[in-house]
């Protein structure tokens, strides 16, 4: 329910015991190591130890890549909903079998690379076959270039050029020339030209006028047919090799778990190595610094007392607050909001944890916007199934909890608005019995008929929400000794609010002139206080501009902030309207041609698809707009962000996870 109190840890340990200590601390899982302070960095005799972080990183990447490739060639058959395997911490710290796993991963990656090279060799062979197609009729070796006295040229001319013309042109150069048409397609005619060697130059000159493109087949010393056969043989050989490589990868899939475990072990070694990199050492002693939650100090002491080390924990002074990592301690209800807070930005150390304040509003607003019993039940069911099957931790647990509470609120608000998949019950009852007078589910209010009421209600909730933020801000200011700030900023706004309420009561409800003047007077006091507050830190003419700026900002800011809560009503109404139209369309065939199997099938299909779309759109839209109300309007009133997340040295891993102790 609060931001965890942190202590700065300073630790000196015999260098020989450092690795052993890190293994003990990763098991403990509550110490985050940090860069040493500047005064330590300037000590000559303290140096960074050599590190194998880089080699661990590249080994880790190799293992991950191998697991990924296994997934590509031999996809794992596994249900979508299954929790990762749990192993105990000792298994994760063990490094047995690492080199075998690395060899295996190397083989998998090499086989994959070979497969990719085979792919490019295959396309090369196919390109050759393609280029030989026009020459298949030619029974000469393709690299023929003539005899003692004659020259031979192979090439193509565009199809639009008549070959007779070309022949004439060649004969006009010399009688001793001959043109053979080999084949033709839509684009070109493929020809062989034989001529006396001494006329080669002139013949080439003449050919140029006909866009002749000579074709050379370097390295192909047999006929086109034979070359094609050779290429086909090569393709077959490549296909066999490819299949063999693929089979060799698939066969290794049996050892997939070994690779996964090795990858996760390396991830933990990497985490310890990165922590060790932050230490400074002399020949015999390592100096390390970090952070530990105050509540874990005793547990830490218990571990450290087993080693030859000297250590101290101290509360950080206020000027160090920006460096202190932030961890939020929450109960089951407020933990759900961690997801929201972490997505925005953690609170700065020494300020307030917004989750307990935000939780009731977030969940209530979400419920109001979705407001449907059916959708709420789906969310509750999904959350419970996910929590049972996946056994989520950390942020996925927070997500499931948020889904659960959002679902409960959605169903509850659905009861108030009488909405179950919009109005499907009403439609069905009236379909089966057209004379029924049942008015639909009971509702306290309905967004369609009471849209004004819902709109004003949303704005009132918004006022409450914003004022909660202001109370927090005022309390914080008073705590930090800025009583005047609390009085002139929040206080004056509250006085204005009271004045406004008095005036509103007068105008809308009782029409009493005494109330009217009292309201005006209170309002005036509030405005004067606000003006004075704005000008109190400025000097000279600055006071005037500050005051006007303040009036403008307060008026437009508050106006905008409160109106922004109208989105609660908008989303509530939109979801209902879209759902209603789907229901109407779904029962249409049954209404026009009677209730039978076919029309009911149409009903089910349209109903399921339509509500699936509406549900997906709504859940996303409501989450985002709820988030916006919290992060922009609410946080704007009091929140100071910028906390760095607390990332202690603890067991991690992509595929398996350590048992919780």
């Amino acid at each position, binding site marked *: 329910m609060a931001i965890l109190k942190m202590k700065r840890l300073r630790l000196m340990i015999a260098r020989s015991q450092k690795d052993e200590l890190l293994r003990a601390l990763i098991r403990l899982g509550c110490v985050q190591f940090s860069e040493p302070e500047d005064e330590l960095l300037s000590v000559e005799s303290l140096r960074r130890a050599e590190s194998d972080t880089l080699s661990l990183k590249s080994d880790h990447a190799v293992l991950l890549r191998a697991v990924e490739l296994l997934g590509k060639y031999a996809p794992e058959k596994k249900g979508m909903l299954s929790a990762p395997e749990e192993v105990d911490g000792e298994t994760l710290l063990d490094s047995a079998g690492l080199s075998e796993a690395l060899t295996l991963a190397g083989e998998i990656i090499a086989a994959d690379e070979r497969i990719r090279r085979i792919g490019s060799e295959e396309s090369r062979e196919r390109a050759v076959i393609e280029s030989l197609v026009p020459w298949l009729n030619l029974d000469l070796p393709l690299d023929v270039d003539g005899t003692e006295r004659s020259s031979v040229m192979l090439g193509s001319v565009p199809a639009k050029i008549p070959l007779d013309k070309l022949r004439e042109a060649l004969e006009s150069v010399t009688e001793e020339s001959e043109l053979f048409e080999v084949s033709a397609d839509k684009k070109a005619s493929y020809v062989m030209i034989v001529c006396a060697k001494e006329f080669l130059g002139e013949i080439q000159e003449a050919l140029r006028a006909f866009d002749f493109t000579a074709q050379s087949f370097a390295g192909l010393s047999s006929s086109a047919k034979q070359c094609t056969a050779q290429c086909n043989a090569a393709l077959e050989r490549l296909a066999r090799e490819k299949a063999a490589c693929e089979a060799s990868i698939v066969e290794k899939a049996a050892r997939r778990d070994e690779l996964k475990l090795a990858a996760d072990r390396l991830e933990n070694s990497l985490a310890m190595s990165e922590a060790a990199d932050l230490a400074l050492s002399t020949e015999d002693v390592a100096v390390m610094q970090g952070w530990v939650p105050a509540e874990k100090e005793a547990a830490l002491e218990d571990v450290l007392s087993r080693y030859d080390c000297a250590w101290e924990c101290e509360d950080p002074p206020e000027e160090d607050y920006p460096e202190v990592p932030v961890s939020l301690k929450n109960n089951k209800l407020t933990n759900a909001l961690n997801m929201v807070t972490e997505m925005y930005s953690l609170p700065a150390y020494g300020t307030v944890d917004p989750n307990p304040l935000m939780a009731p509003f977030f969940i209530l607003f979400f419920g109001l916007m979705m407001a449907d019993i059916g959708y709420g039940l789906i969310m509750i069911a999904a959350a419970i199934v996910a929590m049972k099957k996946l056994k989520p931790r950390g942020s996925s647990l927070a997500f499931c909890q948020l889904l659960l509470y959002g679902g409960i609120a959605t169903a509850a608000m659905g009861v108030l608005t009488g909405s179950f998949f919009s109005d499907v019950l009403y439609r069905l009852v009236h379909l089966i019995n057209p004379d029924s007078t049942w008015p639909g589910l009971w509702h306290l209010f309905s967004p369609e008929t009471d849209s004004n009421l819902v709109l004003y209600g949303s704005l009132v909730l918004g006022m409450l929400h914003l004022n909660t933020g202001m109370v927090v801000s005022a309390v914080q200011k008073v705590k930090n000794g800025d009583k005047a700030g609390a009085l002139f900023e929040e206080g004056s706004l509250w006085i204005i609010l009271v004045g406004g309420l008095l005036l509103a009561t007068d105008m809308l409800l009782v029409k009493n002139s005494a109330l009217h003047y009292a309201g005006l007077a209170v309002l005036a006091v509030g405005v004067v206080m606000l003006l004075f507050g704005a000008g109190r830190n400025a000097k000279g003419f600055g006071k005037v501009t500050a005051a006007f700026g303040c009036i403008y900002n307060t008026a437009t800011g508050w106006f905008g902030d409160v109106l922004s809560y109208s989105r609660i009503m908008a989303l509530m109404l*939109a979801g209902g309207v879209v759902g209603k*139209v789907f229901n*109407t369309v779904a029962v249409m065939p049954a209404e026009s041609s009677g209730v039978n199997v076919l029309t009911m099938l149409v009903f089910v299909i349209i109903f399921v698809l339509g509500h699936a779309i509406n549900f997906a759109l709504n859940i*996303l839209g409501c989450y985002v707009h709820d988030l916006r109300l919290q992060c922009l309007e609410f946080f704007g009133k009091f929140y100071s962000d910028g906390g760095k997340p607390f990332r202690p040295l603890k067991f991690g891993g992509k595929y398996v996870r350590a048992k919780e102790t």
Partner: protein
Amino acid sequence: MSFLESFGGGALALLGAALAAALACVGSAKGTGIAGEAGAGLVSEEPGKSGKALILQVIPGTQGLYGFVIFFVAFSKVSGLIGSLTVQQGLQILSACLPIGIGGLLSAIAQGKVAAASINILAKKPDDWTKGMIMCVIVEFYAILCLLASFLMLGAIAL
């Protein structure tokens, strides 16, 4: 006035319903088209991301749905009365249909561009792709407001 009367109120009302569906659907077609092009480019490189690319592509498709909702509400309001609607009533229906028509058309195209840009996020930072989705939903809100404006106006028209 007599010019409009020569068409009749029913034609004007149908024109409104037609514009609501057609403009919003054209917008969605363009929006999903823009996002789809970007998505196809990504999927050609990384077929494994096709599911997420598809989700981003369908987000600008909702305006068409909203347009259809308003079309449906307007059409069921006037069907059976088409011959007897006055020009005033026809114009009222037409006016009520305009927000989702125009708003749907333009917001879907704008949303399509955001979705296409979000597909870039999916390509470069796959872990952060939901943030792109959130940016798309921000544009969605204005289409929802248009839907509501049309819906509330249609509800207020007495025939």
